[in-house]
């Protein structure tokens, strides 16, 4: 059966009406993985037996208690998880040879919250090793392919998560973003990727990359789905002191609020000449759709995103060198000889930027320019409620494009790095296709902790468009 084609909203409706059961949907997803993943390579590990067992338990609960949904809002829903989130008792590798035998003793908070909401974990998805990259090509294991064109990259670092949603191997997925790693692969794979505000979702149990930037978030088939997953995973956590104490809004119930009169700003620096013309055209058409819905549009100027590349490169490398210093192969995993070249390079540059004599010149200077970027967004949000622009300068690039370019990720994520550095929420959603049939997406950026506003505008767009309902045809054997 084609139950794997359901989005989250339809899955829950069908469970409630007992049209389909969790066992049927989980089995359909597992069969879809078996049929397609030798081509897509989205998964590092699949927990098939455990997922079916959990699905049967969910099924029993649904039959025994019609009011179960209040406590278990994702009961029986299959989810794929990026392999840098710890899953208790389940292999967690960060796509690195250093951790290819690591079995965590506890769940990441995000994973624990999903389980507590009744979700069924299908398996763990591929990423650039340690989430260092924007292609999934620097995974130490294999390259994930873009379901729309198997000769192209899915983006990254949450490329496995985005590809698993686009290939309809799962109903929902969880990714993580430091600066682009949710929104960019979601854009290249034509699905919805939500990067929440820094601190909205706990990082506990997420293998640390750049701790002042890391942010877990959903990758889904629709905005409604993203809002529903965010409601489950967001909120303060005693295991992560950077989580916000502000209450978590009931995002799905706020989606229908009117967007008339909302002001959206278009930064001219994001509609630059170096952005692909097909991308610019599709994003401009999305703006017109929103204008017809009553959204006010104005042009603004933001700090040149080229500077964000430099800030991000220094901050990310520095924090990586600190976070990856702990991997010595004594308590778990393998020794430091198992790091791939990408990780070694990042560790070394970070150590350099933090070392005596260079700290002021690079690291401290980057922290100060970060302040300028934050101030720039604060000013912009005095003029407009939200900011809109392209996600990526181009649609998905061919396999091999990331190799031998030490700045590949930074270049692909240039339009995502400024908002990530400022800790702002952003969503990526599809708005068309290139002539070659590749998805093109736009992003909406909001003020800190205003996910609700970002989601409302994105939801309104999806109510009058159907780009998000289109999925690739994957040729099976």
């Amino acid at each position, binding site marked *: 059966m084609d139950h794997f084609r359901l989005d989250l909203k339809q899955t829950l409706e069908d469970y409630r009406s007992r049209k389909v059961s969790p066992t049927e949907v989980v089995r359909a997803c597992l069969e879809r993985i078996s049929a397609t993943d030798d081509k897509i390579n989205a998964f590092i590990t699949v927990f098939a037996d455990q997922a079916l067992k959990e699905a049967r338990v969910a099924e029993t609960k649904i039959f025994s208690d019609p009011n179960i949904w209040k406590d278990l809002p994702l009961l029986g829903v299959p989810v794929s998880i990026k392999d840098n989130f710890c899953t208790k008792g389940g292999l967690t590798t960060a796509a690195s040879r250093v951790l290819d035998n690591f079995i965590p003793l506890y769940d990441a908070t995000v994973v624990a919250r999903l389980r507590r909401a009744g979700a069924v974990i299908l398996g763990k998805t591929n990423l650039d090793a340690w989430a260092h990259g924007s292609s999934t090509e620097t995974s130490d294991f294999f390259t994930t392919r873009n379901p729309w064109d198997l000769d192209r990259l899915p983006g990254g670092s949450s490329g496995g998560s985005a590809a698993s949603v686009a290939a309809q191997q799962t109903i929902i997925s969880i990714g993580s973003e430091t600066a682009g790693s949710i929104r960019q692969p979601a854009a290249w794979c034509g699905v919805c990727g939500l990067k929440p505000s*820094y601190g909205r979702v706990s990082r506990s149990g997420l293998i640390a990359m750049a701790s002042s930037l890391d942010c877990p978030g959903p990758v889904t088939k629709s905005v409604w789905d993203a809002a529903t997953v965010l409601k489950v995973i967001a909120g303060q956590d*005693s295991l992560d002191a950077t989580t916000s104490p502000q209450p978590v809004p009931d995002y799905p119930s706020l989606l229908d609020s009117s967007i008339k009169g909302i002001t959206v700003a278009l930064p001219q620096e994001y509609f630059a000449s170096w952005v692909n013309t097909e991308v610019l055209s599709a994003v401009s058409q999305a703006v017109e759709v929103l204008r017809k819905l009553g959204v006010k549009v104005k042009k603004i100027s933001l700090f040149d995103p080229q500077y964000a590349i430099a800030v991000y490169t220094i901050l990310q490398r520095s924090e990586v060198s600190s976070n990856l210093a702990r991997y010595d192969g004594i308590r778990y995993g393998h020794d430091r000889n198992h790091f791939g070249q990408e990780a070694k390079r990042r560790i070394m540059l970070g150590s350099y930027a933090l070392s005596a004599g260079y700290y002021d010149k690079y690291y401290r200077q980057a922290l100060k320019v970060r302040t300028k970027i934050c101030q720039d967004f604060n000013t912009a949000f005095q003029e407009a409620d939200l900011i809109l622009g392209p996600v990526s300068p181009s649609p998905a690039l061919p396999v091999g494009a990331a190799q031998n370019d030490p700045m590949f990720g930074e270049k692909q994520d240039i339009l995502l790095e400024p908002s990530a550095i400022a800790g702002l929420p952003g969503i990526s959603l599809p708005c068309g296709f290139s002539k070659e049939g590749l998805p093109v997406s736009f992003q909406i950026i909001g003020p800190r902790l205003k996910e609700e506003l970002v989601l409302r505008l994105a939801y309104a767009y999806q109510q009058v468009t159907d780009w998000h309902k289109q999925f690739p045809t994957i040729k099976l054997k």
Partner: protein
Amino acid sequence: MKGFSTEDIRHLCGLTTLKLSPLVLKQIHAQLSETLIAVEKLKEINTAQLEETNQVTGLTNVFRSDQPRPSQNQANALSNAPAIHQGFFKTQPLFAGKK
């Protein structure tokens, strides 16, 4: 090579306890120099009046109550270790050969 000398790279290998083959060392040398040139752009910004932003949450001094809670037992804590000895992690000697 602009940016880093070979000696710089060797020094960084020592600092980060990373071993590089001669070929990888050469490749990384070139790539690090390329990255360093890209971040030189930071110098263009006048930051004299700017404070540093270490994190963006606005939270300061976050405390929680100091209450005991369950932890991992010794067997669990050792379960991923490649080498153990009498209930402890086994490590390489730090001062091997230095008597």
